[in-house]
């Protein structure tokens, strides 16, 4: 049983290992060549990932949540988009290096549109790459492709923001939420909104949390709404950190 769960947890690694073993038995040369090709990327990973680790730590520890929300949140507007573009453009490393940073920013309140901008800009726009492109394909080519790409990134960000909502993201991004309402259970009676309008609001006939509660007195009030809710749709995670 233990082995099964181990394989399930690391599906991709086992799949890749299996493929390599297969290739090795059929054509050892090709397997060796593949390993050799991978080395370049492994070196790149070793050079970039520790930096990414440090950056996620610094964002988590130093940058207040309000700042991220103001800079990259739902209401940050076009200025937030430009900031996201800048952040993605000055980055280093391949696109997977952008995942941990984006996840940390998402957890601190960045909007989905801005995450798309960061990921895309991270992948496509890099100063050393632009220089390389201008050298081999001409300055005109580089500039036109850059302008078109930036426009495309913005349009993509808006479309993705419309299609994908925060609730579509994996649960572990949302688990730090202290207070949440199970949409499937909420019957839209509005009782919680009446009790604590500061923390709840009605949204499409369902109650929604608008503010993270802090402080003991507030929590007591929240606890009351949890108990009064007729469909028990309000969940208060006392263990979750408010930060």
């Amino acid at each position, binding site marked *: 049983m233990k082995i099964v769960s181990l394989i399930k947890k690391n599906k991709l690694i086992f799949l890749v290992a299996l493929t390599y073993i297969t290739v090795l038995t059929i054509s050892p040369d090709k397997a060796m060549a593949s390993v050799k090709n991978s080395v370049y990327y*492994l070196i790149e990973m070793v050079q970039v990932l520790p930096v990414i680790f440090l950056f996620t730590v610094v964002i988590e520890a*130093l940058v207040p949540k309000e700042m991220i929300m103001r800079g990259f949140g739902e209401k940050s507007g076009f200025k937030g988009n430009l900031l996201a573009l800048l952040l993605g453009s000055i980055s280093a490393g391949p696109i997977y290096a952008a995942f941990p940073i984006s996840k940390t920013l998402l957890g601190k309140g960045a909007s989905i549109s801005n995450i798309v901008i960061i990921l895309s800009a991270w992948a496509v726009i890099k100063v050393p790459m632009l220089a390389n*492109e201008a050298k*081999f394909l001409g300055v005109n080519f580089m500039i*036109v492709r850059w302008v078109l*790409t930036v426009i495309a990134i913005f349009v*993509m960000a808006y479309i993705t923001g419309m299609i994908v909502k925060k609730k579509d993201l994996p649960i572990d991004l949302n688990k730090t939420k202290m207070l949440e309402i199970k949409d499937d259970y909420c019957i839209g009676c509005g009782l919680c909104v009446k009790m604590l309008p500061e923390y709840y609001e009605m949204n499409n006939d369902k109650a929604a949390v608008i503010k993270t509660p802090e402080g003991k007195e507030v929590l007591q009030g929240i606890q009351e709404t949890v108990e009064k809710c007729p469909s028990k749709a309000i969940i208060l995670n006392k263990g979750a950190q408010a930060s």
Partner: protein
Amino acid sequence: MDIFTIVFWTIAILLTVISLIKDKKKTFAAMKKSKGMMGNMLGEIIAIIFIIGLVLTFIPPETIKSVLGSANTFVATFVSALAGSITLIPAFVAFPLVGSLVKVGASIVPAVAFLTTLTMVGIVTFPLEKKEFGTKFALTRNVLSFGFAIVIALTMGVIL
């Protein structure tokens, strides 16, 4: 290490030291959290890197070159965009490769499609993206990127 990576190392270390001075406890808590998150990703990233190695062996740059230079521009554009989505070749290989093709007179439309999907669409990194951001996010982003790569390519064909 190129100069950019070195600059990033310096900035990262500097900021971490500042963070440690400002709030030691919070920084260590953040380290623990990040360690958990990145530890979960590390195995997959290594797996992805070895997939890239395999793909490069079975679809070498020479093959891509023949696809990019094929006669039918419309088919070539689509196939090039597809090739860019699957492969992940380093930029310093991709630009000279595409540059040499354009110089001998190949259409730039497939070339641009290839260059754009190469970095923006990641079939190989898709499993990781899906795990970290959810299927809907990963699918939407990659499909849109593929579509826009072709739009960018066609537009460039008209402009240049």
